[in-house]
């Protein structure tokens, strides 16, 4: 069991109109080809030309998302900045690597190298908000965001900090899409995605609408291990399958992995709402961030976004939310959440 993370504010930049409204009620944006591309906000209202020159496509959305998330919570300086990313700024990584090849390891531009580092966004957030406290980026593929969450929970648990800005960010490039295509990522129906998500969490309840009560991670588990782990998770919180009001699953249209989600869905009563989200965000290492953002916003707004419903249940009051996501059968993540309002 972890020290709960009380989510006070949540922000998302995604392929949907999720940022300006902080809602998913508006008309759903359709997909172009097999890639969901995030909608970029107008940066001019946030930064000057001189500031923008040092920011990549990904760090721009990351910083804007973090700014708005902290603004929503009325906080200027969080006690820690914790993020997760599977690949970081791919555009700059590719730019830098192409330059190494083209100029035969001669004089290279420093900016793409600086911006390609995974923790460049955390540094920018720290500089922008003048936060020089704990600042860490986790790069663990489908476990990246979860390690940022767990780190915050550990720091809350030992009273090192009382609040944290937690986030995830990912982008896709033409080249990386092709590499993943060759590796078979998209051949069975999954759609590529990208996005950025930030959460401001506190150790104490203080006006939050949603608490992340527990997190479980398994790497390449057997089905039995997942089944047993879920039973243990629920019993450790003195609840059972019937108490789950909403099940959020990371189904990505790739039928090879549906059996994992069915494992949970089959245990739940018909009154439980079943929600999915990757049909709107696409698949990527930290796509779970979009689902958690949706959960936080639904808890705050006290309603379920119709566009996310996979199977409508009959529960009116939403209290317990079970979130299960897995990334191509390797990283499996379960969040147990509870509405607090």
């Amino acid at each position, binding site marked *: 069991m972890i020290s709960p993370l009380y989510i006070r504010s949540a922000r998302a930049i995604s392929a949907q109109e999720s940022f300006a409204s902080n809602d998913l009620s508006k008309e759903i944006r359709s997909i172009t080809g097999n890639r969901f591309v995030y909608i970029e906000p107008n940066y001019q209202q946030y930064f000057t*030309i001189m500031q923008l020159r040092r920011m990549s496509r990904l760090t721009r959305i990351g910083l804007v998302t973090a700014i708005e998330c902290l603004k929503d919570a009325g906080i200027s300086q969080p006690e820690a900045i914790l993020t997760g990313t599977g690949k970081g700024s791919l555009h700059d990584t590719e730019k830098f690597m192409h330059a190494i090849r083209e100029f035969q390891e001669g004089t290279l531009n420093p900016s793409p190298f600086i911006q390609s580092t995974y923790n460049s966004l955390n540094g920018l957030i720290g500089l922008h908000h003048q936060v020089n406290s704990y600042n860490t980026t986790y790069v663990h593929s489908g476990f990246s965001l979860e390690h940022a969450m767990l780190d915050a929970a550990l720091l809350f648990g030992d009273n090192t900090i009382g609040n944290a800005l937690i986030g995830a960010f990912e982008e896709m490039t033409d080249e990386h899409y092709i590499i993943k295509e060759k590796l078979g990522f998209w051949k069975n129906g999954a759609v590529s995605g990208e996005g950025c998500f930030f959460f401001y969490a506190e150790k104490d309840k203080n006006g939050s609408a949603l608490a992340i009560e527990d997190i479980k991670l398994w790497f390449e588990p057997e089905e039995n291990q997942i089944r047993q782990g879920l039973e243990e998770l629920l019993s450790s919180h003195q609840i059972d399958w019937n108490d789950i009001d909403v099940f959020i699953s990371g189904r990505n249209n790739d039928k090879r992995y549906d059996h994992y989600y069915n494992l949970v869905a089959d245990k739940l009563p018909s009154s439980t709402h079943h929600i999915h989200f990757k049909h709107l965000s696409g698949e990527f290492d930290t796509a779970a961030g979009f689902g958690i953002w949706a959960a936080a916003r639904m808890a705050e707004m006290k309603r379920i976004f119709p566009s996310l419903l996979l199977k409508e249940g009959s529960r009116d009051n939403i209290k317990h939310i079970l979130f299960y996501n897995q990334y191509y059968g390797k990283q499996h993540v379960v969040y147990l959440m509870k509405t607090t309002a």
Partner: protein
Amino acid sequence: MEDFKRILKLQIIEALNLQGMQPEEIDDNGPLFGEGLGLDSIDSLEMIVLMERNYGIKIEDPREGRKIFESITTMAAYIQANRKK
């Protein structure tokens, strides 16, 4: 020389990712670093790369670079006198 200064400004705008800035906004004789355009040490590295790639000029002594990058005028004059391509 005036045409060359304009080309140089366009190259600097591109190299330093100064999106939205026009060549007319950069003063020919104003300081590029600190006050003036407000460039910093990372920009100076980008300018060294620009000089090498576009004009075949290698700047190895930082003290030399400080003089060359004083303004668009000093930079243009140095390039015209030392360019290898």
